[in-house]
């Protein structure tokens, strides 16, 4: 029996490699099967909330605080490219911004707090494209538009 004793380390290492590989495969499956997607969805929901709040703040800040006879404001808005790797859009609906995405758990509405001289808010921003808020008008009425810019 002592003649095949030399095989012992080979068998041992092979077994170890096999067990570790099996373990890694198991853990990877468990993590990517449940834990990681769950965490990504959670993170996407939070990031979506923040992005929507940031977008609403940008729109509100773009409107001048004091009535002016002629207003033209163009401001770039910084938004995430995608939420959970999926495209999304922020749409103006009345005086509300609506966040919509195909990703589950991502979405929401933000009511805009704007002065009464703002007549209308229109337009849509798409994730990944340049987002610009444009305010035009005069002392009696302002129009706010969410536009995609050219960079």
């Amino acid at each position, binding site marked *: 029996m*002592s003649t095949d*004793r030399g095989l*012992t380390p080979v*068998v*041992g290492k092979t*077994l*170890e490699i096999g*067990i*570790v590989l099996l*373990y890694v495969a198991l*853990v990877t499956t468990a*993590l990517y099967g449940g*834990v990681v997607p769950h*965490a990504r969805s*959670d*993170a996407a*929901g*939070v990031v979506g*909330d*923040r992005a*929507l*709040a940031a977008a*609403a*703040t940008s729109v*509100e800040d773009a409107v001048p*605080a*004091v*009535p002016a006879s002629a207003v033209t404001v163009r401001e770039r808005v910084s938004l995430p490219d995608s939420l959970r790797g999926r495209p999304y859009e922020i749409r103006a609906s009345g*005086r509300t911004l609506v966040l919509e995405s195909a990703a589950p758990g991502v979405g*929401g509405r*933000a*009511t*805009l*707090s*704007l*002065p009464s*001289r703002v007549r209308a808010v229109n337009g849509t921003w798409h994730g990944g494209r340049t987002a610009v808020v444009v305010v035009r008008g005069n002392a009696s009425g302002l129009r706010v538009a969410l536009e995609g810019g050219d960079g």
Partner: protein
Amino acid sequence: MTAAEVRGAGRRPSEQRGQANLLAVGVALLLVTGALGVAVAFSDGAFAGVDRTAGDRRLADSLAARVVASDGPLAARENVLRRDAVENLTPASFEDAFPAARGHAVRVALDGHTLVRTGDATGGETVRRIVLVARRQSRTYAPAFGAGVDLTLPRRTGALDLVVRPPPGTVVRTVRADGRIVLRDPDGLRGAYRVRVSRYRTTTVAVDANGSLPAGSVRVTAHPSVTEKATLAVTVDG
């Protein structure tokens, strides 16, 4: 006997000794699993405890900004609220004035005293701002005027109401505020007038007449505003 057999002879009983490493591997994997479990538990806790009220905070911030904006329905000027408007707030009038508050539970408080509450806002996100609360008051002065006798108003005001009733035979030709002629009639001023003066400087009123003006012939009513500091708290809870 070969040399190998000699060395092996001493350790003869450990037939299973060959794969003792596997035990160490097992323990190591167990430890890794434990660490992984702890890490996953921590990350789950972090996601569970994350602040998901970004929207509430944003709305509270923008409502507070609207309340103190210079063209807001409650503001006299930027960061200055009108006491009468603030005290007569109702949930309906508040939602009319600030449509963004519709559909949300909002509480507005001044120095901890609730001005208006829509819905059931108990917890939630609160944004505080330091504001001034202005109260208008009217003060009437009716001193005797004469050459070199002027009236300096103790508080600044934006407008003056004057009632000129000179005694018979006396003609009031001009009224000056800070040296500027604000009222003039060569035939004589008589009756009630309103003049605008600068809110940014102390006003001195001088009256030119062809005779003496006893106390009460010219009554000057000023409308100074008295401001107090206060903390405005806007709470949004869903």
